[in-house]
C-alpha cells in the first residue's frame, strides 16, 4: 500500500481514480502497438521462414520457365511444377566432371494435399552452409530403400495421421483429388520413416524414391538399381544435341512449358525429373555451370537466394506502405496519450492544487503527470506486446495450417528497442499537460483568492 509512496505510486493512484478512462486509453494504445508489432514480426517471420527453408539448397536446375515457379515448387512445395527435364539431360549433368552431386526432385502427386516429392537418399545429406549435421533428419523409422517406401515430414504425419508401417495411395496433381485415382491405387506407398521437424515446408512433404514416380506413371519397369537415369531411357550425349535442336525448332511441347506438369507431357517426354539440385566441386565451376545451363535451350539454373532476394525487393514497396501505416498508428497512439493526459490534467487541476498546498513542489506535480503518462504507456506497451504475440502466433499458426510456408518468429532486440521508444515517446507526450500542471496556481484552483 503506502510503504513507499513515491511519485510513481501517487501517479498510479491518480490513474486508478479514473479507472474506466485509463482502461480505455490503455486498450487503444495496446491495440496500436499490437498491430504495429504484429505486422513487423509477421513480415520478418515470413521472410525468415522463407530464407531458412532455402538454406540447404544450392543451385536448382529445371526446365525453362519461371525461376520463381521452380524455386517455390521445389523448395516451398507450392505452385505447379515446370515441365520435366528429360533423364538424358540429368545423365548429361551427372557425367560432367565439375558436378560433385546431383539430387533429383520429382513432383506432381499428392496425398491428401501433401506433396509427394520423389528424390534420392542424397536429399537427406543436404546441409545448410557451415552446418555439420544434415538439415533433414529422421526422427523415427528408417530411410526409404525401395520404390514406394515413404519418409514423411513431421507436420504431414500429424496432419494425415500416418505412422510407420501405414500405407497410402497417392493422387495425381498437386491438390487433393475429389475422386480416387485408380491409376495410382495399384501403387500404394508404405511409411518407413518420419522426419524431424525443421520448421520449413519440408515438414509438409512426403519423400519417396523418385523411381516410384516413374513406375507409378508407367514410365519405367521396376528395377533394383532404381535411381540410375540411364535405366529410365538410355539417351546418349548426342541426344542432348537433338533436344537442343528440337527446342530451337520450336517442337518442344509448348503445352508443358505453359501449363507445367501434365500426364501427357510425361508420357511424351518419357521419365524425367521436375528439378535438380546440382552441387559442383568449386565456386568457379558453379558459376561456369550456371552460365552454361542458362545458355542452353533446355534448362535454367537458379540460385534460390537470388530469386528470394528479387522477390523481397518486389515486396519491399508493400512493406514500406505497412511501415507508413504503422508509423501512423504509433502517431495516433501518442496523440491518444496526449489527449488523455490533457483532459485528465485539466479535470484534476483542483487536486493538483491540493497537492501543491500540502507540500508538493511544482517539479513534483510535473513529475506526477509525466509518470501517469509513463504508466499508461507502459501498460499499453505491455498489453500491446502480449496482444501482438497472440496475434502473431495465431496468424503464423493459421499460415502454417493453410500453406507450406513456415513463419519463423523471433523476438529480437530491435522489437524491445521499438517498444522502449514507444514507451518513451508516449511518456513524453504528456509534456504539454505536465507543463499545464506545473503552472497550476493554488489560489486560483482552490478559489482562495
Amino acid at each position, binding site marked *: 500500500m503506502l510503504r513507499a509512496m513515491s511519485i510513481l505510486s501517487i501517479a498510479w493512484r491518480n490513474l486508478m481514480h479514473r479507472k474506466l478512462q485509463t482502461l480505455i486509453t490503455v486498450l487503444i494504445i495496446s491495440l496500436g502497438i499490437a498491430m504495429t508489432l504484429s505486422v513487423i514480426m509477421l513480415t520478418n517471420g515470413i521472410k525468415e521462414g522463407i530464407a531458412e527453408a532455402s538454406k540447404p539448397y544450392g543451385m536448382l536446375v529445371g526446365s525453362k520457365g519461371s525461376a520463381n515457379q521452380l524455386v517455390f515448387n521445389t523448395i516451398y512445395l507450392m505452385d505447379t511444377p515446370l515441365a520435366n527435364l528429360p533423364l538424358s539431360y540429368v545423365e548429361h549433368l551427372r557425367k560432367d566432371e565439375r558436378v560433385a552431386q546431383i539430387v533429383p526432385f520429382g513432383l506432381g502427386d499428392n496425398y491428401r494435399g501433401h506433396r509427394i516429392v520423389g528424390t534420392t537418399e542424397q536429399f537427406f545429406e543436404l546441409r545448410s552452409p557451415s552446418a555439420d549435421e544434415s538439415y533433414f533428419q529422421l526422427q523415427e523409422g528408417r530411410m526409404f530403400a525401395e520404390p514406394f517406401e515413404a519418409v514423411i515430414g513431421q507436420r504431414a504425419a500429424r496432419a494425415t495421421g500416418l505412422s510407420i508401417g501405414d500405407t497410402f495411395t497417392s493422387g495425381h496433381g498437386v491438390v487433393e483429388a475429389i475422386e480416387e485415382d485408380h491409376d495410382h491405387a495399384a501403387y500404394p506407398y508404405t511409411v518407413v520413416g518420419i522426419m524431424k521437424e525443421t520448421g520449413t515446408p519440408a515438414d509438409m512433404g512426403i519423400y519417396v524414391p523418385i523411381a516410384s514416380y516413374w513406375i507409378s506413371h508407367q514410365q519405367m519397369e521396376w528395377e533394383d538399381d532404381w535411381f540410375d537415369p540411364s535405366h529410365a531411357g538410355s539417351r546418349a550425349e548426342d541426344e542432348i544435341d537433338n533436344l537442343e535442336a528440337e527446342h530451337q525448332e520450336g517442337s518442344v511441347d509448348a503445352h508443358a512449358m505453359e501449363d507445367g506438369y501434365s500426364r501427357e507431357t510425361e508420357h511424351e517426354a518419357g521419365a524425367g525429373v521436375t528439378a535438380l539440385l546440382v552441387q559442383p566441386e568449386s565456386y568457379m565451376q558453379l558459376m561456369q555451370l550456371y552460365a552454361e545451363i542458362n545458355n542452353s535451350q533446355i534448362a535454367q539454373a537458379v540460385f534460390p537466394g537470388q530469386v528470394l532476394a528479387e522477390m523481397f525487393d518486389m515486396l519491399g514497396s508493400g512493406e514500406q506502405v505497412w511501415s507508413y501505416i504503422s508509423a501512423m498508428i504509433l502517431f495516433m497512439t501518442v496523440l491518444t496519450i496526449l489527449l488523455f493526459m490533457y483532459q485528465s490534467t485539466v479535470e484534476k487541476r483542483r487536486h493538483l492544487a491540493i497537492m501543491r498546498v500540502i*507540500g508538493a513542489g511544482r517539479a513534483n506535480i510535473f513529475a506526477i503527470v509525466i509518470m501517469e503518462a509513463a504508466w499508461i504507456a507502459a501498460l499499453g506497451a505491455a498489453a500491446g506486446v502480449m496482444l501482438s504475440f497472440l496475434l502473431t502466433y495465431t496468424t503464423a499458426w493459421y499460415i502454417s495450417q493453410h500453406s507450406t510456408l513456415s513463419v519463423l518468429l523471433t523476438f529480437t532486440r530491435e522489437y524491445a528497442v521499438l517498444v522502449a521508444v514507444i514507451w518513451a515517446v508516449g511518456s513524453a507526450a504528456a509534456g504539454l499537460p505536465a507543463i499545464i500542471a506545473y503552472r497550476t496556481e493554488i489560489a486560483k484552483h482552490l478559489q*482562495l483568492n
Partner: protein
Amino acid sequence: MMLRLKEISKSYPAADTGHMMQVLYMEKLVIRANERVALVGPSGSGKSTLLNIIAGIIRPTTGSIKLNGQELTELSEREWDRVRTHCFGYVFQNFYLLPGFSALENVLLAMQFAGTWRGRERMERAKELLHRVGLEARLHHRPHQLSNGEQQRVAIARALANEPCLVMADEPTANLDAANAMRIIELLTEVCAEHRAALLLSTHDLGLLRYMDRTIHLGGAGVASNVHS
C-alpha cells in the same frame, strides 16, 4: 516561534472599473508559540485572505511577514512552499482532501511531500495522528466514505503531520453541525496544545471564542483592523 506581521495589505483590481481595491489591511499582528488566536469579522473582511497570505498561497501587496525573524515576503515561491510545508499546517473550510486517497494516505502524502519521517516511522506517525483524532477505524476509508466531521478530522491530522509551529484553520466548523463543530474545535485546540503549535483560525461562530486566547476583529471591507485581547 514568533510570527510578526506588519502593515500587510492586499489589493485586487476591481472587476468593473479595473481600479485597485484593497481587501485587507492589517497594521500589526504578532502570534507567539502555543497561542490560540481567532480572526472574526464579516464576510469579505479579509480573514481567509490573511490566512492565505501567511501560508504563502497568495502574496501580499505590501507589508512584512517575519517568522522567527525571517522575512517571508522576500522568499521565492519554492522557499515559501517549504516554509508552508514544514512550519505551517492548514485546515481548510472545504477540507481539501485528495479524493483518490484514503484517510491514511492523505496524511502520509503531506509527510511524503515534506520529506519528513521515514518508512515505518512515517506510517506509525500517520496512524497515531488519525488515532488521536478518533479515526483509527477509518484509516483506509476514502473521503467520500467519510462524514464531513470525519473529513475535517483527517484534515486536522494532516495539518499536524509535519509538526508545524502554526496551525491555521479557515472556518473549520462552517460545514459542520453544532455538536460536531464543538468537538472539532476542542480537538483542534487540544492537539495544537499537545504539539506545542500556535493556532490561528477564522470563524463566524462567536461561540468558539471561549477556546481562544485572543480574538482579532477584522473590520468591514478589510480596510481596518481592530485587535482585542
